[in-house]
């Protein structure tokens, strides 16, 4: 039996989602973005929405998300993705519209847009990558940076008396009547990836069924910004991030109904 005999469609048990193209990703090895991109592409494909989706890319490391997933995209100004998504969805109500945003984009410069889009119950899904740092600009403090955590702008650690507290924006968004589903996930283990993918699917289903705003926070690693190896980053995330940002559904009014 040759390799060609084995590489037949009926033998394939796993493959790259077809929406994920062959462009070389600019993400650092070990970064969570690559995994999240993959499960996003898989979910869109599995739901049959590849010809029916508008993604809104952020400013931050995921600014080039549109280079990797072959769907229609709009690149938003820093923090404005929920406003851009609001118009895209209201003017094209039959499409899936989702934003893909980091912590600086969503919870610092774009806080107003995030809260008001969620409060209006816009029928969009917000994919929120929380790695507690500004990766793209070189590792500065984010709103979600942990107390005591060293970044390039908090070289001696975040001091709450100077910089305030890590912002639990998803808990805040769960308080709003416009959100139907707010969950916090991670992608550091195979089991976690599976759960995160289910959460993204639920959020997309909510968007298509016009149930309100869904938020999927994904607690993520930034090994470059954290200055740790990928393995150490995962360990550090479990030890330090997850106590502050515990995983699980924060709000799910859809499944309760």
């Amino acid at each position: 039996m040759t390799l060609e005999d084995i590489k037949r469609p009926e033998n394939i048990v796993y493959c790259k989602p077809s929406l994920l193209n062959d462009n070389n990703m600019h993400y650092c090895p070990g970064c969570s973005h690559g995994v999240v991109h993959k499960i996003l592409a898989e979910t869109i494909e599995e739901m049959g929405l590849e010809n029916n989706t508008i993604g809104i890319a952020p400013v931050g490391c995921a600014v080039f998300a549109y280079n990797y997933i072959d769907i229609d995209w709009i690149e938003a100004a820093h923090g404005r993705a929920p406003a851009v998504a609001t118009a895209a969805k209201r003017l094209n109500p039959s499409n899936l519209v989702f934003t893909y945003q980091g912590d600086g984009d969503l919870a610092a410069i774009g806080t107003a847009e995030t809260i008001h889009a969620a409060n209006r119950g816009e029928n969009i899904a917000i994919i929120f990558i929380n790695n507690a740092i500004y990766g793209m600009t070189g590792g500065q403090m984010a709103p979600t940076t942990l107390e005591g955590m060293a970044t390039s702008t908090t070289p001696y650690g975040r001091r709450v008396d100077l910089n305030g507290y890590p912002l639990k924006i998803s808990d805040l968004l769960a308080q709003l009547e416009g959100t139907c589903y707010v969950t916090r996930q991670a992608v550091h283990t195979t089991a976690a990836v599976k759960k995160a993918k289910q959460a993204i699917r639920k959020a997309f289903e909510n968007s298509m069924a016009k149930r309100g705003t869904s938020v999927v926070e994904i607690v993520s690693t930034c090994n470059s910004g954290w200055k740790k190896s990928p393995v150490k980053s995962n360990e550090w995330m479990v030890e330090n991030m997850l106590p502050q940002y515990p995983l699980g559904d924060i709000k799910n009014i859809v499944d309760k109904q």
Partner: protein
Amino acid sequence: MKGNEAIAHAAIRYGVDGYFGYPITPQSEILETLEAEMPWETTGMVVLQAESEISSINMVYGGAATGKAVMTSSSSPGISLMQEGLSYIAAGELPALVVNVMRGGPGLGTIHPSQSDYFQATKGGGHGDYHFIVLAPATVQEMADFVGLGFDLAFKYRTPAMILADGIVGQMMEKVVLPPFRPRRTDEEIALQCPWAVTGHPAKRKPNVMTTLELDSAKMEENNERYQRTYRLIESNEVRFQGYHLDDAEYLMVAFGSMARICLKAIEDARLAGMKIGLIRPITLWPFPYEAIAELSRKVKGMLVVELNAGQMIEDVRIATEGRVPVHHFGRMGGIVPDPGQVLDSFISFFPHSK
């Protein structure tokens, strides 16, 4: 009806797909009229009160990226907040309409009329090398007409257009003939007219991506050169102005918007006293009617630029005249509007031999 109301009615009738705005005096009637008219029940137009002007302009960016005809309106401080978004819309080569019903600044300023956003509107305002088409209405009729004209030009050149009105034209009531109703474009028509639009249907094509980011400097320079080619085309095709009493004019006034009407009254009074003054009213502030003013600068003895600001359009008039004739300025600020007598007094003080 009021100029602001005319804009709202004209937008519904033109078949605008979406309006996104935030209240600010003196233009809140635009959003109020749209909400009262409920066009989502008739034409399907989306009307949304946003949480800020920053959000409004980014909603316009998002809506325009999907090929829809979308607009916002505000007044000076709100337009300042929109500058980042306007830069993105210009860079994305997106058609959209923005209305600025100007009030006096700087800062929170006043709610009274002004023309002090001329620089901001015509010279860029946001970051980067860009322009957009700026239309200056002087009547309520033009407030209504320029909605359609603004969108037509915006889609023709893939550029944002601005109606730069002063608070007088926004609040003034006049008779107006509204444009006839026309249906909003269908999704098929949008796909044909805007093949670049982000519609979420890449089955029949490659994915469309609306981005203004390009880290390759050579490509970014190419993008800039493409923008500049569009601007040169607009400059050669779309200059609009109106001339009054130019045939025998020995002197010239240059004014836009409501100030042009006040100047015209001053000129008619002056002509009764034998003073031969003409008027140029630029309708497009960008592209500016440099050539028409240059030509007149070879015939007249002097010019007075009259504005509700400290002297902004005068710089373009001076560029056009290249020092051939004296160019003076009369302006009021802070929401004060001069009457024709004050304009004429100013003119005579600058040109005492014109009598």
